[in-house]
């Protein structure tokens, strides 16, 4: 699962909180499937037995980032 952000500040905000809730992730290049963009994105390393997608969605909502992120 990849998450892209419209700005660095939002990525940093998400990254800081993601660590706190125990998500496992990497900072990765913007996926090539998203054309015309550059910079970092976040790849969530999904954990067995955990509903990471729901966790990501609730984090995005909590941080008021729903207009600023795309989840692939």
């Amino acid at each position, binding site marked *: 699962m990849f998450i*892209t*952000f*419209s*700005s*660095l*500040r939002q*990525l*940093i905000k998400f990254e800081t909180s993601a660590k706190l809730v125990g998500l496992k992730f990497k*900072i*990765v*290049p*913007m996926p090539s499937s998203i*054309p*015309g*963009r*550059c*910079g*970092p*994105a976040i790849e969530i390393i999904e954990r067995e037995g955990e509903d990471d997608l729901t966790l990501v969605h609730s984090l995005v909502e909590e941080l008021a980032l729903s207009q600023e992120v795309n989840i692939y």
Partner: protein
Amino acid sequence: MNIKNVNTSVPREESLFLHPHGHFDNATTSYPKFPILSEMIDSYLENVGGNYGRTFYSRAYQVALAVEETRVLLAKKLGVHKPQNIMFCSGATEALNGVLRGFISSNKEMSTKYNAFNRIEKVWLSPLEHNAVTRTVHRLQVDFDIAVEILPADTDGRINLEECYYLPFTDKDLVIVNHQSNVNGVINPIGELKKVICRKGDDVPLVVDAAQSLSFDVPFIGVEKAGIDALVFSAHKGLMGPTGLGGFYLKNEQLISEWKEGGTASLLIADSMDMPSTSPEKFEAGTLNLVGIYGLKAVLDLEADNLIEGMVVSENDRTRRHQLEDFLLLLDEVKKIPDFTVYAANDSKYQGEIFSIRHRFMSNSELGRKLWEQYNIETRVGVHCALSAHRYLNTIPAGTVRFSPSFFHTANDFQLLVQILYQLGS
């Protein structure tokens, strides 16, 4: 500090300032700096070295974090809730050029695009503006046919709010004010000014030049609360950071257009020929001065008391080595010395840590040279890039000899300076 019974015959060897305590030219650039500044710059160059916002690997991400943390520290300093409204550039001069051009040219030619204000037709300036403002406004006056007026002020150049109250400001006006003069240290009432210029209901934009007033260790006025539309700062003066770095706060990114185009740290529109429309990316084309930002962050972290344990050494002690009262006492003593004319605020409540002098008989260059050659005292001599201020203070064409102490000067240093000026004055 106790400056009494000043001995006017201090032997030269006792009067010598030890380097760097002779540096009374901190309004030009602050010196010395905290050791942590060069440590962090070295660390960036040797261990980090990434660019900001362009890519994903850990060194680059580390830089992104550092830049955004610096923005947050500056926003806290300025009382600004949105750190993204703080932009970096090469210094206060670039920021003033860009912001003033943005307000004036945007409002004339791009009003259909932004519609934030009506076309600016008149610019109001304080009488103590730096050339970065006056030369830019002069150029814009030629290019855009705007009127320029000087705000009413007292004899020391401080804006007179009572008289401003009756002026007919409208939203076709732009007001630009120097927060602290780089010639006589006068502090202007920027906290109250926005209310006065907007009292008739029009939103009159206010731009503040805080290059001389923003200090890393002294609380600053709440910029957002004061309603200031744009505020410009420099990193290498009171903020004790490196040269080549400054920036500005903008209340609303749509107030002005960007003044340069190029690559940005935007993650959103790399496939567009237009610059991003959101701040800070809209105003930060090209690679930022990351070396400088690392250095500035180190100093602002000192204020935030956020150093890694063990890194604080005595040289990085953030306690100012003198109080404002010590400086004001120095000023009082200098005013008593015969044959010197002192240029300072009429009321010490509005005095920042800068003043100028002229001697009745000795030229400024001779005085400056004697201070340097005989006492290792570094001053600025002549016209201090503020022609308008010198005209107002009637110190044209020779200018003044200017003193601007450092964070590290002590009350004893001030006492020594008074003794030396007594010697030279007599």
